């Protein structure tokens, strides 16, 4: 009887190597080389273009606004779901995953109708909520809300209650306990959820095109501008913008990895 010390090593190495190279690294290399071989001055021209600058700033700003919205509501939802048992909690808990499961085009479609002038919610509002910047932040918040809740929830569940009891026994008020005992332990998970929300929001495309109205200089996000440039066969411009977007994504990804390495990995969630 022959025993392989490393069962399946050759086969799994082969498939992994082939898959990673063909499906992930090769497309990335195509983008990188295209960027390197762009005509000199292309990047400078693209970055100094006011339309590009507006779109990039708007993308970053609205993703930041959405991540902040999720910071507040996501933290509240996670806290209530873990700490305050109420009837129907499991159903509400399952609802959190809805934006993950719902295709982004469907989310955009229903948000544009719901918050539109004739929609159930849009009718009640005194200001227009779609086809403007509010609509974009709304859609980005909707699609990225689960990241915040799901990165906080497992950490909250495993938080030992004894520390809070000890703080209370030592005379701390509830508010002081929350601020000085609970919050510091939650901070890494909050930061990681914030970063994940932001990363998702900054690259989001499908839901935004339905609610933004797609007006240049007003509600145009960076991914949409890439599509516009491609439709005009401006490949260099599209590549330059894509490289900025990729840079932002990689920075956020590196930040999340550092957080996990520093504070231990929370349950990963896609």
């Amino acid at each position, binding site marked *: 009887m022959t*025993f392989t010390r*490393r*069962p*399946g090593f050759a*086969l*799994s*190495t082969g*498939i992994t190597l082939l*898959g*990673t190279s063909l*499906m*992930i690294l*090769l*497309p*990335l290399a*195509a*983008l990188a080389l295209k960027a390197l071989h762009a005509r000199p001055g292309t990047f400078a021209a693209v970055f100094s273009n006011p339309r590009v600058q507006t779109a990039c700033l708007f993308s970053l700003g609205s993703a930041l606004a959405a991540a902040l919205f999720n910071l507040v*509501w996501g933290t*509240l*939802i996670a806290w*209530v779901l873990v*700490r*305050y*048992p*109420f009837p129907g909690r499991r159903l509400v808990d*399952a*609802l*959190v*995953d*809805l934006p993950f*499961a*719902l*295709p*982004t*085009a*469907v989310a955009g*479609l*229903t948000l544009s*109708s*719901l918050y539109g002038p004739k929609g*159930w*919610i849009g009718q009640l509002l005194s200001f227009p909520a779609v086809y403007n910047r509010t609509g974009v932040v709304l859609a980005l918040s*909707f699609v990225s809300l689960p990241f915040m809740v799901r990165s906080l929830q497992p950490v909250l569940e495993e938080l030992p*209650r004894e520390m809070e009891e000890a703080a*209370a026994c030592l005379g*701390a008020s*509830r508010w002081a306990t929350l601020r000085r005992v609970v919050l510091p332990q939650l901070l890494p998970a909050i930061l990681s959820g914030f970063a994940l929300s932001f990363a998702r929001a900054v*690259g*989001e*495309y*499908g839901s935004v*095109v339905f609610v933004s109205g797609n007006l240049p200089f007003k509600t145009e996000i960076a*991914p949409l501008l*890439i599509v516009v440039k491609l439709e005009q066969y401006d490949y260099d411009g599209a590549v330059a913008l*894509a490289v900025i977007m*990729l840079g932002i*994504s990689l920075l956020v*990804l590196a930040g999340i*990895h550092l957080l996990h390495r520093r504070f231990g990995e929370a349950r*990963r969630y896609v």
Partner: protein
Amino acid sequence: MSDLRFPADGVAEPRWLRLSLTAVTVVFMAVFLLLPLVNIFHSALSEGWRVFLASLQDPNAAAAIRLSLLSTFWAVLLSGVFGLAAAWLLGRHRIPGHGLWVAVLDLPFAISPVVAGLMFVLLCGLDGWFGPWLDRHNTQIIFAKPGIILATAFVTFPFVARELLPLVQALGSESEEAARLLGASPLQTFWRVTLPALKWGLLYGVILCASRAMGEFGAVSVVSGHIRGETMTLPLHIEATYNEYQFGAAFACATLLSLMALVSLALKSFVAWRARRDRESA
């Protein structure tokens, strides 16, 4: 958590605060998450059943459904085979550059779908690396079905691997070694020992992968070329009908994807529950 019902002062928030925070959360979730879902079904049926059924039987809608199913099939297959191999390699063997490999698996999640689509245009488009070669062989990838399949597969590629990797790491090799000592062949060991231990994780990854593949929009939109009845997936078909103000048709197709989303949520909870039960009984 029943011990939280009657908390001592200072260990939990006062009752009025707990009740009002719970109420605020439930109302927020109902308005912000549930209402959009209800709105899809309400709007789809607001023009009557006849319009609803006709929109789904439209030949372009039917072609879009078929293409979505086709690309989902390939995406799941590729992600599944790659996921099993990658989880096995990275979870069981120490290889050089281990951390870097795991980080590479995160890339498709971090990259904006539009950028992902663009990468395939640069690779296989007419001006791309393989463009001239593909053209000589009369093969079209971009603005055709293969491009849509590739873009979908890229976005969902690491789903299964990321679900399986922690499971393989936790599994250990003792039971496999026992099986081998008892005379099982490597293939038998894989089918009878390893795969059953990974089946719920594999299923969970496949559900995530399929639901994302069915709904992928940005990457597919860039490589599709939007040819009616040819290169439109269901989400792209929804956008096209929406842009033509056929809201009834757009919402009718959206109900299909929403139902799929609800089924995938239910399946995910079921698989997570079975996996937990298996773990507890083991």
